Protein backbone atom coordinates (compact mmCIF):
# COMPACT_ATOMS: atom_id res chain seq x y z
CA UNK A 1 0.00 0.00 0.00
CA UNK A 2 1.48 3.28 -1.04
CA UNK A 3 1.79 6.16 1.34
CA UNK A 4 1.80 9.93 0.83
CA UNK A 5 3.86 10.51 3.97
CA UNK A 6 7.49 11.43 3.57
CA UNK A 7 10.03 10.42 6.20
CA UNK A 8 12.73 12.98 6.88
CA UNK A 9 15.64 11.47 8.77
CA UNK A 10 17.65 14.06 10.70
CA UNK A 11 16.50 17.21 12.51
CA UNK A 12 19.28 19.65 11.73
CA UNK A 13 19.05 22.64 9.40
CA UNK A 14 18.60 20.38 6.35
CA UNK A 15 15.96 18.10 7.88
CA UNK A 16 14.06 21.05 9.34
CA UNK A 17 14.02 22.85 6.01
CA UNK A 18 12.96 19.68 4.18
CA UNK A 19 10.14 18.86 6.64
CA UNK A 20 8.86 22.42 6.55
CA UNK A 21 9.05 22.45 2.76
CA UNK A 22 7.08 19.24 2.44
CA UNK A 23 4.37 20.62 4.71
CA UNK A 24 4.29 24.02 2.99
CA UNK A 25 3.48 22.51 -0.38
CA UNK A 26 0.74 20.32 1.01
CA UNK A 27 2.56 17.11 1.82
CA UNK A 28 2.87 15.42 5.17
CA UNK A 29 6.11 14.51 6.88
CA UNK A 30 7.39 12.58 9.81
CA UNK A 31 10.69 14.01 11.08
CA UNK A 32 12.89 11.48 12.87
CA UNK A 33 15.73 12.75 15.05
CA UNK A 34 17.92 10.50 17.19
CA UNK A 35 18.87 13.30 19.59
CA UNK A 36 16.48 14.62 22.21
CA UNK A 37 16.37 18.02 20.51
CA UNK A 38 16.06 19.61 17.08
CA UNK A 39 18.68 21.88 15.53
CA UNK A 40 21.34 19.34 14.67
CA UNK A 41 25.08 19.94 14.84
CA UNK A 42 24.85 23.73 15.42
CA UNK A 43 23.06 22.99 18.71
CA UNK A 44 24.80 19.73 19.64
CA UNK A 45 28.24 21.28 19.17
CA UNK A 46 27.40 24.62 20.84
CA UNK A 47 27.92 26.85 17.83
CA UNK A 48 27.92 30.50 18.86
CA UNK A 49 27.05 32.20 15.60
CA UNK A 50 26.31 30.97 12.12
CA UNK A 51 28.63 31.66 9.21
CA UNK A 52 28.75 34.07 7.50
CA UNK A 53 26.33 36.51 9.13
CA UNK A 54 27.02 35.41 12.73
CA UNK A 55 23.38 35.19 13.79
CA UNK A 56 23.25 33.38 17.16
CA UNK A 57 22.88 29.70 16.30
CA UNK A 58 20.40 28.88 19.05
CA UNK A 59 17.90 31.54 18.03
CA UNK A 60 18.21 30.64 14.35
CA UNK A 61 17.73 26.92 14.97
CA UNK A 62 14.84 27.55 17.36
CA UNK A 63 13.14 29.59 14.64
CA UNK A 64 13.60 26.76 12.14
CA UNK A 65 12.41 24.13 14.65
CA UNK A 66 9.30 26.09 15.64
CA UNK A 67 8.24 26.42 12.01
CA UNK A 68 8.26 22.62 11.89
CA UNK A 69 6.81 21.73 15.29
CA UNK A 70 3.98 24.24 14.87
CA UNK A 71 2.94 22.79 11.51
CA UNK A 72 0.08 20.26 11.71
CA UNK A 73 1.38 18.33 8.70
CA UNK A 74 4.63 17.38 10.42
CA UNK A 75 4.97 14.80 13.15
CA UNK A 76 8.24 14.97 15.07
CA UNK A 77 9.86 11.94 16.72
CA UNK A 78 12.71 12.92 19.05
CA UNK A 79 15.13 10.49 20.66
CA UNK A 80 14.19 8.11 17.88
CA UNK A 81 16.28 5.97 15.57
CA UNK A 82 15.43 4.11 12.39
CA UNK A 83 16.35 0.50 13.12
CA UNK A 84 14.90 -1.31 10.10
CA UNK A 85 13.61 -0.53 6.65
CA UNK A 86 11.49 -2.62 4.32
CA UNK A 87 9.56 -2.18 1.14
CA UNK A 88 10.11 -0.24 -2.02
CA UNK A 89 9.70 3.30 -3.27
CA UNK A 90 6.11 4.42 -2.77
CA UNK A 91 5.60 1.97 0.09
CA UNK A 92 8.51 1.92 2.51
CA UNK A 93 8.03 0.73 6.06
CA UNK A 94 10.46 2.12 8.61
CA UNK A 95 10.79 0.59 12.04
CA UNK A 96 11.52 3.29 14.61
CA UNK A 97 12.84 2.81 18.12
CA UNK A 98 11.99 5.71 20.38
CA UNK A 99 11.22 6.60 23.99
CA UNK A 100 7.88 4.81 23.73
CA UNK A 101 9.31 1.68 22.20
CA UNK A 102 9.03 0.42 18.67
CA UNK A 103 6.77 1.82 16.01
CA UNK A 104 6.29 1.23 12.31
CA UNK A 105 5.84 4.11 9.93
CA UNK A 106 4.79 3.81 6.32
CA UNK A 107 6.14 6.33 3.86
CA UNK A 108 6.22 6.85 0.13
CA UNK A 109 9.58 8.61 -0.01
CA UNK A 110 12.50 9.36 2.26
CA UNK A 111 14.72 12.43 2.67
CA UNK A 112 18.09 11.75 4.26
CA UNK A 113 19.29 14.76 6.23
CA UNK A 114 21.78 13.02 8.44
CA UNK A 115 24.57 15.57 8.10
CA UNK A 116 28.24 15.52 8.90
CA UNK A 117 30.59 15.01 11.81
CA UNK A 118 33.66 17.07 12.63
CA UNK A 119 36.90 15.40 11.62
CA UNK A 120 38.54 13.86 14.67
CA UNK A 121 41.91 15.66 15.01
CA UNK A 122 43.32 12.56 16.69
CA UNK A 123 43.46 11.11 13.19
CA UNK A 124 45.49 13.89 11.61
CA UNK A 125 48.83 12.97 10.13
CA UNK A 126 50.70 16.08 11.26
CA UNK A 127 51.72 16.46 14.86
CA UNK A 128 49.26 18.92 16.32
CA UNK A 129 48.71 17.13 19.63
CA UNK A 130 44.97 17.73 20.01
CA UNK A 131 44.72 15.06 22.69
CA UNK A 132 48.13 15.92 24.12
CA UNK A 133 48.05 19.68 24.71
CA UNK A 134 45.01 21.26 26.39
CA UNK A 135 45.59 24.52 24.50
CA UNK A 136 45.22 22.79 21.13
CA UNK A 137 41.50 22.88 20.39
CA UNK A 138 39.21 22.56 17.36
CA UNK A 139 36.81 25.00 15.70
CA UNK A 140 33.79 23.69 17.58
CA UNK A 141 35.62 23.91 20.93
CA UNK A 142 36.24 27.60 20.26
CA UNK A 143 32.59 28.00 19.19
CA UNK A 144 31.53 26.74 22.60
CA UNK A 145 33.79 29.31 24.29
CA UNK A 146 32.54 32.10 22.04
CA UNK A 147 28.97 31.12 22.89
CA UNK A 148 29.60 32.05 26.52
CA UNK A 149 31.83 35.01 25.56
CA UNK A 150 34.78 33.59 27.43
CA UNK A 151 37.80 32.63 25.36
CA UNK A 152 40.55 31.24 27.56
CA UNK A 153 43.45 28.82 27.43
CA UNK A 154 42.05 25.55 28.78
CA UNK A 155 45.40 24.89 30.52
CA UNK A 156 45.24 27.87 32.86
CA UNK A 157 41.95 29.69 32.35
CA UNK A 158 43.76 32.83 31.18
CA UNK A 159 42.84 34.75 28.02
CA UNK A 160 45.28 33.96 25.20
CA UNK A 161 47.50 36.71 23.81
CA UNK A 162 48.38 34.86 20.64
CA UNK A 163 45.88 32.64 18.86
CA UNK A 164 46.32 30.78 15.59
CA UNK A 165 44.06 28.74 13.35
CA UNK A 166 45.48 25.85 11.33
CA UNK A 167 43.41 25.28 8.19
CA UNK A 168 42.61 22.09 6.27
CA UNK A 169 42.94 19.73 9.25
CA UNK A 170 41.46 16.47 7.96
CA UNK A 171 40.69 17.93 4.53
CA UNK A 172 42.55 17.90 1.23
CA UNK A 173 44.83 15.18 2.48
CA UNK A 174 45.66 12.03 0.58
CA UNK A 175 47.33 10.54 3.66
CA UNK A 176 44.08 10.76 5.59
CA UNK A 177 41.92 9.85 2.61
CA UNK A 178 39.83 13.01 2.67
CA UNK A 179 40.86 14.54 -0.63
CA UNK A 180 37.99 17.02 -0.67
CA UNK A 181 37.82 20.60 0.58
CA UNK A 182 35.36 20.93 3.45
CA UNK A 183 34.16 24.27 2.05
CA UNK A 184 33.21 26.06 5.25
CA UNK A 185 36.32 26.01 7.45
CA UNK A 186 37.98 29.07 5.86
CA UNK A 187 34.85 31.09 6.53
CA UNK A 188 34.20 29.63 9.96
CA UNK A 189 37.81 30.18 11.09
CA UNK A 190 37.75 33.75 9.80
CA UNK A 191 34.43 34.41 11.52
CA UNK A 192 35.79 33.01 14.78
CA UNK A 193 39.01 34.99 14.33
CA UNK A 194 36.97 38.19 14.10
CA UNK A 195 35.07 37.26 17.26
CA UNK A 196 38.29 36.53 19.15
CA UNK A 197 39.71 39.90 18.10
CA UNK A 198 36.51 41.61 19.24
CA UNK A 199 36.46 39.78 22.55
CA UNK A 200 40.20 40.14 23.20
CA UNK A 201 41.28 43.36 21.46
CA UNK A 202 44.89 42.99 22.60
CA UNK A 203 45.24 39.52 21.11
CA UNK A 204 47.16 38.68 17.95
CA UNK A 205 45.29 36.25 15.71
CA UNK A 206 46.86 34.31 12.84
CA UNK A 207 45.38 31.98 10.23
CA UNK A 208 47.79 29.53 8.59
CA UNK A 209 46.34 28.33 5.30
CA UNK A 210 47.00 26.47 2.05
CA UNK A 211 44.45 28.45 0.00
CA UNK A 212 41.81 30.73 1.42
CA UNK A 213 38.53 29.55 -0.08
CA UNK A 214 36.17 32.39 0.66
CA UNK A 215 33.89 31.90 -2.30
CA UNK A 216 31.15 34.27 -3.42
CA UNK A 217 30.13 36.94 -0.96
CA UNK A 218 32.16 35.47 1.90
CA UNK A 219 35.08 37.39 0.43
CA UNK A 220 33.68 40.78 1.36
CA UNK A 221 31.48 39.51 4.21
CA UNK A 222 34.23 37.77 6.20
CA UNK A 223 37.67 37.70 4.61
CA UNK A 224 38.22 41.39 3.92
CA UNK A 225 36.74 42.59 7.23
CA UNK A 226 38.84 40.02 9.14
CA UNK A 227 41.98 41.32 7.50
CA UNK A 228 41.22 45.01 7.15
CA UNK A 229 39.12 45.88 10.19
CA UNK A 230 40.16 43.22 12.68
CA UNK A 231 43.78 42.79 11.60
CA UNK A 232 43.70 39.01 11.51
CA UNK A 233 47.01 37.88 10.00
CA UNK A 234 46.73 35.41 7.12
CA UNK A 235 49.91 33.45 6.52
CA UNK A 236 50.13 31.13 3.52
CA UNK A 237 51.88 28.09 4.88
CA UNK A 238 50.59 25.16 6.85
CA UNK A 239 51.78 24.13 10.29
CA UNK A 240 53.56 20.80 10.43
CA UNK A 241 54.04 20.48 14.14
CA UNK A 242 53.02 21.91 17.50
CA UNK A 243 55.59 21.71 20.27
CA UNK A 244 55.46 22.64 23.93
CA UNK A 245 57.76 25.42 25.17
CA UNK A 246 59.42 25.68 28.56
CA UNK A 247 57.19 28.56 29.59
CA UNK A 248 54.03 26.56 28.97
CA UNK A 249 53.17 27.96 25.57
CA UNK A 250 52.98 26.21 22.22
CA UNK A 251 55.48 26.58 19.41
CA UNK A 252 54.06 26.16 15.91
CA UNK A 253 56.40 25.26 13.08
CA UNK A 254 55.78 25.89 9.43
CA UNK A 255 56.88 27.88 6.44
CA UNK A 256 55.91 31.46 5.72
CA UNK A 257 55.78 30.64 2.03
CA UNK A 258 55.17 34.06 0.54
CA UNK A 259 57.96 35.55 2.59
CA UNK A 260 60.16 32.60 1.74
CA UNK A 261 61.29 31.72 5.22
CA UNK A 262 60.72 29.04 7.84
CA UNK A 263 58.85 30.07 10.95
CA UNK A 264 58.68 28.91 14.54
CA UNK A 265 56.38 31.12 16.51
CA UNK A 266 54.90 30.87 20.00
CA UNK A 267 51.13 30.65 20.48
CA UNK A 268 48.87 30.51 23.52
CA UNK A 269 45.97 28.82 21.77
CA UNK A 270 46.03 26.72 18.60
CA UNK A 271 42.70 26.12 16.87
CA UNK A 272 42.50 23.25 14.40
CA UNK A 273 40.13 23.99 11.53
CA UNK A 274 38.74 20.50 11.29
CA UNK A 275 36.83 19.53 8.19
CA UNK A 276 33.66 17.57 7.59
CA UNK A 277 33.20 13.83 7.44
CA UNK A 278 30.00 11.82 7.02
CA UNK A 279 28.26 11.59 10.38
CA UNK A 280 27.83 8.13 11.93
CA UNK A 281 24.12 8.56 11.20
CA UNK A 282 24.79 9.20 7.53
CA UNK A 283 26.85 6.02 7.28
CA UNK A 284 24.34 3.97 9.27
CA UNK A 285 21.28 5.14 7.32
CA UNK A 286 23.03 4.58 3.99
CA UNK A 287 23.75 0.99 5.00
CA UNK A 288 20.28 0.44 6.43
CA UNK A 289 18.51 1.79 3.34
CA UNK A 290 20.94 0.27 0.89
CA UNK A 291 21.85 3.66 -0.55
CA UNK A 292 25.23 3.92 -2.27
CA UNK A 293 27.93 5.97 -0.54
CA UNK A 294 30.85 7.67 -2.26
CA UNK A 295 34.44 6.72 -1.45
CA UNK A 296 34.42 9.07 1.54
CA UNK A 297 31.18 7.70 2.99
CA UNK A 298 28.88 10.57 1.99
CA UNK A 299 25.62 9.72 0.19
CA UNK A 300 26.32 9.27 -3.51
CA UNK A 301 24.28 11.44 -5.85
CA UNK A 302 24.59 9.83 -9.27
CA UNK A 303 22.65 12.60 -11.05
CA UNK A 304 25.55 15.03 -11.03
CA UNK A 305 25.38 18.77 -10.56
CA UNK A 306 21.93 19.22 -12.13
CA UNK A 307 20.32 16.59 -9.93
CA UNK A 308 22.24 16.84 -6.67
CA UNK A 309 19.62 15.27 -4.34
CA UNK A 310 18.62 11.95 -5.93
CA UNK A 311 20.30 8.86 -4.53
CA UNK A 312 20.75 5.64 -6.44
CA UNK A 313 17.50 4.30 -4.93
CA UNK A 314 14.19 5.43 -6.29
CA UNK A 315 12.15 7.46 -3.80
CA UNK A 316 15.11 8.23 -1.56
CA UNK A 317 16.62 11.72 -1.64
CA UNK A 318 19.41 13.29 0.39
CA UNK A 319 20.31 16.85 1.27
CA UNK A 320 22.85 19.02 3.03
CA UNK A 321 26.09 17.67 4.44
CA UNK A 322 24.89 14.06 4.12
CA UNK A 323 25.83 14.53 0.46
CA UNK A 324 29.23 16.07 1.14
CA UNK A 325 30.70 19.23 2.64
CA UNK A 326 28.05 21.94 2.64
CA UNK A 327 27.48 25.34 4.15
CA UNK A 328 24.07 26.40 5.44
CA UNK A 329 23.02 27.93 2.13
CA UNK A 330 23.87 24.70 0.33
CA UNK A 331 22.06 22.74 3.00
CA UNK A 332 18.73 24.55 3.05
CA UNK A 333 18.78 24.85 -0.75
CA UNK A 334 19.31 21.15 -1.31
CA UNK A 335 16.81 20.39 1.47
CA UNK A 336 14.09 22.36 -0.31
CA UNK A 337 15.08 20.63 -3.53
CA UNK A 338 14.81 17.21 -1.88
CA UNK A 339 11.43 18.14 -0.33
CA UNK A 340 10.08 19.13 -3.72
CA UNK A 341 11.37 15.98 -5.35
CA UNK A 342 9.95 13.75 -2.63
CA UNK A 343 6.50 15.37 -2.73
CA UNK A 344 6.46 15.21 -6.52
CA UNK A 345 7.38 11.54 -6.33
CA UNK A 346 4.63 10.48 -3.91
CA UNK A 347 2.04 12.53 -5.83
CA UNK A 348 2.98 10.97 -9.13
CA UNK A 349 2.55 7.56 -7.47
CA UNK A 350 -0.87 8.48 -6.06
CA UNK A 351 -2.04 9.83 -9.41
CA UNK A 352 -0.98 6.75 -11.28
CA UNK A 353 -2.56 4.56 -8.58
CA UNK A 354 -5.82 6.53 -8.84
CA UNK A 355 -5.60 6.71 -12.64
Amino acid at each position, binding site marked *: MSSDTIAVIGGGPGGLRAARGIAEIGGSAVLIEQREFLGGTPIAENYAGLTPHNEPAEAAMRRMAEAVTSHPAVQVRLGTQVVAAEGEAGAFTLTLRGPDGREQVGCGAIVLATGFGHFDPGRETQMYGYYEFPDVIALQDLEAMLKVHNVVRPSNGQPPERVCFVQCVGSRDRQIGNEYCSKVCCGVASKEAIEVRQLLPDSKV*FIFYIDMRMYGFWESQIY*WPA*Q*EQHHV*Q*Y*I*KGIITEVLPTKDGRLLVRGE*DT*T*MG*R*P*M*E*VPMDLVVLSVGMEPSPGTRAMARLLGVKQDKYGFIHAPGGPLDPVSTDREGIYACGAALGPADLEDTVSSAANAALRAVAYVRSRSLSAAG
Partner: protein
Amino acid sequence: MTMTDAHYKAPQVAGYADVPLEEKQRLFAEVKNDIRFADYLYGCYECGICVAACPSARFYDFSPRRIAQAAAREDVELFYQQMQEDIWECSQCFSCLRCPRGNNPGGIITIMREVAVGNGLASAREALKAYSRIIYKIMSTGTQVSPDMLQPDAFPDWGPETSDVSAHLDLWRRALPPETLHTTSTGWAVADKTLIELYLIWHHTGALDMIADVDPGLHAILAEVMEERLEEEGIEL
Protein backbone atom coordinates in the same frame (compact mmCIF):
# COMPACT_ATOMS: atom_id res chain seq x y z
CA MET B 1 56.88 40.45 18.49
CA THR B 2 55.69 39.73 15.00
CA MET B 3 55.93 36.70 12.80
CA THR B 4 59.68 36.67 12.72
CA ASP B 5 61.54 38.08 15.68
CA ALA B 6 65.16 38.44 14.71
CA HIS B 7 65.80 34.76 14.22
CA TYR B 8 66.27 34.84 10.52
CA LYS B 9 68.47 37.91 10.18
CA ALA B 10 71.90 38.46 11.61
CA PRO B 11 72.08 42.24 12.09
CA GLN B 12 75.87 42.32 12.18
CA VAL B 13 76.09 41.29 8.52
CA ALA B 14 73.69 44.01 7.38
CA GLY B 15 75.15 47.09 5.74
CA TYR B 16 73.81 49.37 8.47
CA ALA B 17 73.87 49.57 12.22
CA ASP B 18 71.26 47.63 14.13
CA VAL B 19 69.13 49.54 16.62
CA PRO B 20 67.11 48.35 19.63
CA LEU B 21 63.68 46.84 18.96
CA GLU B 22 62.01 49.85 20.62
CA GLU B 23 63.53 52.17 18.02
CA LYS B 24 62.20 49.97 15.21
CA GLN B 25 58.79 49.97 16.82
CA ARG B 26 58.92 53.77 17.12
CA LEU B 27 59.79 54.18 13.42
CA PHE B 28 57.05 51.74 12.43
CA ALA B 29 54.54 53.59 14.59
CA GLU B 30 55.49 56.85 12.94
CA VAL B 31 54.72 55.37 9.53
CA LYS B 32 51.55 53.64 10.69
CA ASN B 33 50.22 56.76 12.37
CA ASP B 34 50.64 58.81 9.22
CA ILE B 35 47.22 60.04 8.12
CA ARG B 36 47.69 58.48 4.65
CA PHE B 37 48.58 54.99 5.89
CA ALA B 38 45.01 53.68 6.29
CA ASP B 39 44.27 54.55 2.65
CA TYR B 40 47.46 52.93 1.42
CA LEU B 41 47.12 49.54 3.08
CA TYR B 42 43.92 47.52 3.43
CA GLY B 43 44.75 43.80 3.34
CA CYS B 44 47.16 41.86 1.16
CA TYR B 45 46.30 38.75 -0.87
CA GLU B 46 50.02 38.22 -1.40
CA CYS B 47 49.09 37.68 -5.05
CA GLY B 48 52.14 39.42 -6.49
CA ILE B 49 50.41 41.59 -9.09
CA CYS B 50 52.32 44.60 -7.75
CA VAL B 51 55.63 42.79 -8.21
CA ALA B 52 54.66 41.75 -11.73
CA ALA B 53 53.92 45.39 -12.56
CA CYS B 54 56.98 46.85 -10.81
CA PRO B 55 59.89 47.97 -13.02
CA SER B 56 62.30 48.05 -10.07
CA ALA B 57 61.52 44.43 -9.23
CA ARG B 58 63.05 43.46 -12.56
CA PHE B 59 66.39 45.01 -11.68
CA TYR B 60 66.69 44.75 -7.92
CA ASP B 61 65.91 42.27 -5.19
CA PHE B 62 62.92 44.47 -4.51
CA SER B 63 59.28 43.55 -3.98
CA PRO B 64 56.39 45.93 -3.31
CA ARG B 65 54.49 42.87 -2.04
CA ARG B 66 57.00 42.41 0.74
CA ILE B 67 56.64 46.08 1.64
CA ALA B 68 52.86 45.64 2.01
CA GLN B 69 53.27 42.35 3.85
CA ALA B 70 55.82 43.65 6.34
CA ALA B 71 53.55 46.59 7.10
CA ALA B 72 50.41 44.44 7.37
CA ARG B 73 52.11 41.94 9.64
CA GLU B 74 53.69 44.70 11.68
CA ASP B 75 56.97 42.90 11.22
CA VAL B 76 59.12 45.73 12.59
CA GLU B 77 62.40 43.87 12.01
CA LEU B 78 61.77 43.43 8.31
CA PHE B 79 60.20 46.86 8.13
CA TYR B 80 63.36 48.45 9.52
CA GLN B 81 65.49 46.47 7.09
CA GLN B 82 63.31 47.76 4.28
CA MET B 83 63.68 51.35 5.49
CA GLN B 84 67.44 50.88 5.39
CA GLU B 85 67.51 49.16 2.02
CA ASP B 86 64.48 48.39 -0.13
CA ILE B 87 62.60 51.68 -0.13
CA TRP B 88 65.32 53.44 -2.11
CA GLU B 89 65.03 50.89 -4.91
CA CYS B 90 61.47 52.01 -5.69
CA SER B 91 61.10 54.42 -8.61
CA GLN B 92 57.82 55.80 -7.21
CA CYS B 93 56.07 55.11 -10.52
CA PHE B 94 53.01 53.69 -8.73
CA SER B 95 52.49 50.85 -11.19
CA CYS B 96 51.66 48.89 -8.02
CA LEU B 97 48.38 50.81 -7.77
CA ARG B 98 46.73 48.10 -9.86
CA CYS B 99 46.36 46.11 -6.61
CA PRO B 100 42.94 44.35 -6.54
CA ARG B 101 42.56 45.27 -2.87
CA GLY B 102 43.26 48.94 -3.50
CA ASN B 103 46.56 48.94 -1.65
CA ASN B 104 49.29 51.41 -2.54
CA PRO B 105 52.71 49.90 -1.75
CA GLY B 106 54.43 52.84 -3.46
CA GLY B 107 52.53 55.18 -1.17
CA ILE B 108 53.66 53.22 1.89
CA ILE B 109 57.20 53.67 0.57
CA THR B 110 56.60 57.43 0.24
CA ILE B 111 55.76 57.57 3.93
CA MET B 112 58.65 55.26 4.84
CA ARG B 113 61.05 57.51 2.93
CA GLU B 114 59.75 60.60 4.66
CA VAL B 115 60.17 58.95 8.04
CA ALA B 116 63.65 57.71 7.05
CA VAL B 117 64.66 61.22 6.03
CA GLY B 118 63.04 62.84 9.05
CA ASN B 119 64.87 60.48 11.38
CA GLY B 120 68.21 60.78 9.62
CA LEU B 121 68.48 57.08 8.82
CA ALA B 122 71.79 56.05 7.27
CA SER B 123 70.02 54.90 4.13
CA ALA B 124 68.40 58.31 3.71
CA ARG B 125 71.74 60.07 4.07
CA GLU B 126 73.24 57.72 1.54
CA ALA B 127 70.36 58.08 -0.89
CA LEU B 128 70.27 61.87 -0.67
CA LYS B 129 74.04 62.37 -0.87
CA ALA B 130 73.95 62.78 -4.61
CA TYR B 131 71.03 65.15 -4.40
CA SER B 132 72.42 67.88 -2.16
CA ARG B 133 72.82 70.28 -5.08
CA ILE B 134 69.25 69.69 -6.21
CA ILE B 135 67.92 70.04 -2.68
CA TYR B 136 69.88 73.26 -2.31
CA LYS B 137 68.53 74.61 -5.57
CA ILE B 138 64.92 73.72 -5.03
CA MET B 139 64.79 74.92 -1.45
CA SER B 140 66.75 78.14 -2.00
CA THR B 141 65.33 79.15 -5.36
CA GLY B 142 62.11 77.20 -5.75
CA THR B 143 63.27 75.61 -9.00
CA GLN B 144 65.10 72.37 -9.37
CA VAL B 145 67.46 72.75 -12.28
CA SER B 146 68.82 76.05 -13.58
CA PRO B 147 70.44 76.65 -16.97
CA ASP B 148 73.83 77.40 -15.42
CA MET B 149 73.92 73.89 -13.92
CA LEU B 150 74.07 72.40 -17.41
CA GLN B 151 77.76 72.90 -18.09
CA PRO B 152 79.50 70.94 -20.85
CA ASP B 153 82.16 69.64 -18.45
CA ALA B 154 79.43 68.06 -16.37
CA PHE B 155 77.72 66.54 -19.40
CA PRO B 156 80.43 65.67 -21.95
CA ASP B 157 78.13 63.31 -23.78
CA TRP B 158 75.71 66.04 -24.71
CA GLY B 159 77.76 66.95 -27.78
CA PRO B 160 79.56 70.06 -29.04
CA GLU B 161 76.49 72.33 -29.13
CA THR B 162 76.35 72.35 -25.38
CA SER B 163 79.54 74.37 -25.09
CA ASP B 164 78.28 76.92 -27.67
CA VAL B 165 75.09 77.35 -25.71
CA SER B 166 76.78 77.65 -22.34
CA ALA B 167 79.34 80.15 -23.64
CA HIS B 168 76.53 82.59 -24.42
CA LEU B 169 73.96 81.33 -22.00
CA ASP B 170 72.73 84.73 -20.92
CA LEU B 171 72.20 85.77 -24.55
CA TRP B 172 70.31 82.61 -25.46
CA ARG B 173 68.06 82.97 -22.44
CA ARG B 174 67.26 86.58 -23.33
CA ALA B 175 66.23 85.39 -26.79
CA LEU B 176 63.42 83.37 -25.23
CA PRO B 177 60.08 85.18 -25.50
CA PRO B 178 58.77 84.93 -21.92
CA GLU B 179 60.47 87.44 -19.66
CA THR B 180 60.38 85.02 -16.76
CA LEU B 181 62.95 82.88 -18.57
CA HIS B 182 65.52 85.70 -18.88
CA THR B 183 67.55 84.25 -16.06
CA THR B 184 70.34 81.69 -15.80
CA SER B 185 70.69 80.99 -12.08
CA THR B 186 67.12 79.73 -11.74
CA GLY B 187 64.96 77.82 -14.18
CA TRP B 188 62.68 80.83 -14.36
CA ALA B 189 62.42 84.08 -12.45
CA VAL B 190 60.96 83.45 -9.06
CA ALA B 191 59.11 86.42 -7.59
CA ASP B 192 60.26 87.62 -4.17
CA LYS B 193 56.81 87.10 -2.75
CA THR B 194 56.83 83.47 -3.98
CA LEU B 195 60.25 82.82 -2.51
CA ILE B 196 59.25 84.17 0.89
CA GLU B 197 56.16 81.97 0.83
CA LEU B 198 58.24 78.96 -0.09
CA TYR B 199 60.67 79.60 2.76
CA LEU B 200 57.77 79.87 5.17
CA ILE B 201 56.37 76.61 3.81
CA TRP B 202 59.73 74.82 4.22
CA HIS B 203 59.88 76.16 7.74
CA HIS B 204 56.36 75.51 8.92
CA THR B 205 55.94 72.07 7.34
CA GLY B 206 59.21 70.86 8.82
CA ALA B 207 60.71 70.27 5.37
CA LEU B 208 63.82 72.19 6.43
CA ASP B 209 64.09 70.24 9.67
CA MET B 210 63.85 66.95 7.74
CA ILE B 211 67.25 67.46 6.20
CA ALA B 212 68.92 68.59 9.43
CA ASP B 213 69.98 65.04 10.19
CA VAL B 214 70.68 63.73 6.71
CA ASP B 215 72.86 66.70 5.60
CA PRO B 216 73.78 69.08 8.44
CA GLY B 217 76.06 71.23 6.23
CA LEU B 218 73.37 71.80 3.65
CA HIS B 219 70.86 72.46 6.37
CA ALA B 220 73.09 75.16 7.87
CA ILE B 221 73.56 76.94 4.54
CA LEU B 222 69.85 76.84 3.71
CA ALA B 223 68.85 78.00 7.17
CA GLU B 224 71.19 80.97 6.86
CA VAL B 225 69.92 81.93 3.40
CA MET B 226 66.31 81.67 4.49
CA GLU B 227 66.66 83.48 7.78
CA GLU B 228 68.51 86.35 6.13
CA ARG B 229 65.86 86.70 3.49
CA LEU B 230 62.99 86.43 5.93
CA GLU B 231 64.60 89.01 8.22
CA GLU B 232 64.79 91.44 5.31
CA GLU B 233 61.05 91.03 5.03
CA GLY B 234 60.67 91.64 8.73
CA ILE B 235 59.69 88.05 9.53
CA GLU B 236 61.16 86.66 12.71
CA LEU B 237 61.23 82.89 13.16
